[in-house]
């Protein structure tokens, strides 16, 4: 049996080795709660936009309410997706190097997709 470095007090506090034991779980639930109203808004909006032309879609993206909601939906969904993907890689990818590579690639992809989407929406909203 390996020597345990954690003191009984630190085990009792239950904060994990670097006080981040709850972090993943908490952020997953926090983004999940935020996504409940955001998904409802998104589905209703997409139903209303179905069959509409580009002008109507752009007007919708440009409006302050829907533009902000779309940015929030995009960022929150990508954050939540990245947390979920990490768990999937941890559970099913055995090789450590491949697991790390997948996690890094997924994180970079999420940040790239979020930046590209939000930049496009800002450019649309503020012109230029």
């Amino acid at each position: 049996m390996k020597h345990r470095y954690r003191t009984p007090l630190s085990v009792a506090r239950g904060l994990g080795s670097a006080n981040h034991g709850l972090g993943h779980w908490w952020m997953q639930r926090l983004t999940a709660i935020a996504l409940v109203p955001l998904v409802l808004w998104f589905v209703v909006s997409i139903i209303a936009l179905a069959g509409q032309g580009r002008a109507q879609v752009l007007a919708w993206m440009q409006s302050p309410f829907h533009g902000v909601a779309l940015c929030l939906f995009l960022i929150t969904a990508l954050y939540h997706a990245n947390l979920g993907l990490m768990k999937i890689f941890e559970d099913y990818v055995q090789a450590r190097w491949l697991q790390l590579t997948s996690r890094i690639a997924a994180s970079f992809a999420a940040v790239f997709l979020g930046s590209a989407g939000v930049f496009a929406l800002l450019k649309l909203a503020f012109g230029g």
Partner: protein
Amino acid sequence: MPMSINERPLSPHLQVYKVELPMLLSGLHRITGLALSVGSILLVAWILCAVYSDTAFVSMNKFFGGYIGQFVLFGWTFSLIYHSVSGVRHLIWDTGSLLDVEQILSSSKMVVAITAVLTLLAWFLAGGFPGGGA
């Protein structure tokens, strides 16, 4: 690897259990989550096409109107609604409620029913499928 480790009995795995609805739904939650992660690329592509290019937006709409596009979109709709409904049940479980076996069985059926109704409702309100795709 030393033999002594190989000879250890394995803990029971998936195949020893009778297939029940809750375990299928648990797996489906992950699968739809994975599908939605990949699907987020489509959402961003849609935003970029709408903002930057008229021709790209038109051809994207054309793709989603076709058979393959409609199939992808339907899968996207189903995944989003199932993962959300099932996710709400997960949030309820986090409060410590609905954790009895009977409640898990009955709420599983509710998740399936609500998902089916909402998916079909959203799909037909948005005008999908009939005519193969508009």
